[in-house]
């Protein structure tokens, strides 16, 4: 099964809608709760990142019998130094984003900790792409 969601930069009112839909779907399919939580934490952090940093983005979900693959591609400023962005505590978030309870430099490390496979690529001035895979039949991170 494949699904696609559009995400609008700056729209904090609707941030989390795609993650919420995916959570409901996985619950309906009877996926283990621990695995669902890892999926939605990854997806929600990544969705909020698009809202916080990019102009817009697309979330593509490919749901297989034994894994979920999530690709988030945005049009935005991109990340010049990915290694630095992956460090806990590093953030370029605006004061507005911090007021929403994010922007403490924990999102990407959080995704990395919960994903079975995580790939991040970026072109400064164009945008960022995240590829996250989680095995649905494994509980341990």
């Amino acid at each position, binding site marked *: 099964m494949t699904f696609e969601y559009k995400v609008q930069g700056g729209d*904090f*009112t609707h*941030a*989390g809608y795609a*993650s*919420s839909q995916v*959570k409901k779907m996985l619950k309906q399919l009877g996926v283990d*709760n621990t695995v669902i*939580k890892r999926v*939605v*934490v990854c997806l*929600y*952090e990544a969705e*909020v990142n698009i809202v916080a940093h990019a102009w817009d983005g697309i979330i593509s979900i490919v749901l297989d019998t034994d894994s979920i693959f999530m690709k988030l591609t945005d049009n935005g400023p991109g990340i010049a130094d990915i290694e630095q962005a992956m460090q806990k505590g590093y953030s370029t978030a605006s004061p507005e984003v911090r007021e*929403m*309870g*994010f922007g*403490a430099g*924990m*999102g990407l490390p*959080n995704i990395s*900790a919960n994903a079975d496979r995580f790939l991040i690529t970026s072109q400064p001035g164009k945008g960022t792409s995240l590829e996250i895979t989680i095995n649905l039949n494994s509980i341990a991170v």
Partner: protein
Amino acid sequence: MGNIGKMKLEEICSALNGTMVCGEDKAYREVTHAFASDLMSDVLTVNCNSLLLITGLANMQTIRTAEMSDIECILFVRNKSVTPEMKNLADELGMTLITCPLTMFRASGELYKAGIKPLF
């Protein structure tokens, strides 16, 4: 105030002079642990069932973060107000929202004294 280490949501509300904004029909639910933070990324790192979130951050992302974290009750401190949009979403998700006039430190202290445990 109920058994040590376990409190019903209605007991929490009354102990903190709070108001139950929504989810009154689930006031019988019990919590054993609480986590206090205004940083949603911190909340997304915790892993516990029957957890109460204590926060001074009142916006839509507080509700969404609780949803992603399987948290069924949020206690808003410092008289933070819940918007109709937040209430609607919480209702839809079956959450209980409580507001109270106490500071986060005071609310956490009262619940700790009553036996609610920290996560770590």
